[in-house]
């Protein structure tokens, strides 16, 4: 029996469940390796070569190289793991989260200061009101 997923109708949201976790295992474990300063330095020196040490799909590697976090998440990445890439790049969690919304860094920061993205219109797919517009 397939996993029950009552959360699939939430807009703009990927729940990191067992299926995602299986798909993203090596991608996330690569991210985890960036917890060590030595690995961060090796990754920064030659990203492609470092990624090639991991049994990740080419698509996953390309998503990492492009820093396309939405793509990484679709391919099984989890934000807490992906955050290690952001940390390696010296980016804040807010910059990372904002990069997934299609907003500029300033627009996202301003939205948060004004109280964040509203829940109204963002509960179910089909009633979307992305970017708080």
């Amino acid at each position, binding site marked *: 029996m397939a996993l029950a997923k009552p959360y699939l109708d939430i807009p703009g949201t990927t729940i990191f469940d067992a299926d995602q976790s299986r798909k993203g295992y090596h991608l996330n474990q690569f991210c985890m390796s960036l917890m060590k300063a030595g690995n961060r330095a090796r990754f920064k020196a030659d990203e492609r070569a470092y990624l090639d040490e991991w049994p990740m799909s080419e698509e996953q590697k390309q998503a990492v190289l492009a820093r396309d976090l*939405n793509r990484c*998440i679709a391919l099984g990445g*989890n934000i807490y793991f992906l955050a290690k890439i952001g940390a390696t790049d010296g980016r804040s969690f807010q910059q990372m*989260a904002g990069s997934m919304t299609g907003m500029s860094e300033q627009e996202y920061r301003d939205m948060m200061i004004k109280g964040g993205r509203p829940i109204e219109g963002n509960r179910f797919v089909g009633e979307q009101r992305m970017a708080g517009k």
Partner: protein
Amino acid sequence: MARTNARITASVYTSHVPAIGAAIDHGKTGEPYWQPVFKGYEFSKRWMKDNTPDVILLVYNDHASAFSLELIPTFAIGCAAEFAPADEGYGARPVPQVIGHAELAAHVAQSVIQEDFDLTIVNRMDVDHGLTVPLSLLCGQPQVWPCRVIPFAVNVVQYPPPSGRRCFMLGQAIRRAVESYDEPLRVQVWGTGGMSHQLQGPRAGLINREFDNAFLDRLIADPERLSKMPHIDYVREAGSEGIELVMWLIARGAMADVAGGAKPTVVHRFYHVPASNTAVGHLILENKP
């Protein structure tokens, strides 16, 4: 008659946003952006000085720091003598080592496992911002933390986390375990994480002020009913990472009123949006002496 057993004196609830830790570590707490956040903890720091416990059982979640995908324990209790602050990719936070309480931790583990809660026992673990940011918020920047801390990690990274119900019942078992420990320790249970926030996808930045404040109301007044709220409500209403709030129910379950005692006193309540991507919520509940 002098009390001879340990008891739970209070529970503390707070968000554990990493940017709050960074603001403290980099001396930015006075900046206009951060001032309102830290103002909400001024009372708490004084309260903590006046009510320093012997031990904090600190419920938090690891954010892919100590646990990778190799091992995902639903509940993990730190039984070591000490725990180092984790390097989460920016270098470790400049905060003191966390000194555990191995004897009480072992006692809690032995008691609640025999009450059917299958804890994972951890003898070596680094602790990340989930644990150290709440300590910084309540204790400031001391050379050593003012008391022992038992790290209690809950999986909220890979879905599903434990249910609110399970967390609430675990809190009750923890209270019984603490009260059967034959040393007169003052113990606080802290529940951390939340409140509404979503860190991923096009819906990132979600905040639900109404949900958060209703959660605080219900946590205080009717945690039993709140504990029955299903995961989907947390995720839909409070964001994919808002589900961390189930951890608050462990701390709430450990309070005396849940076992028929007196209602706790709400000594502090605070709510502010935003800290980075997150709504900050904070409560202190005291058991009647």
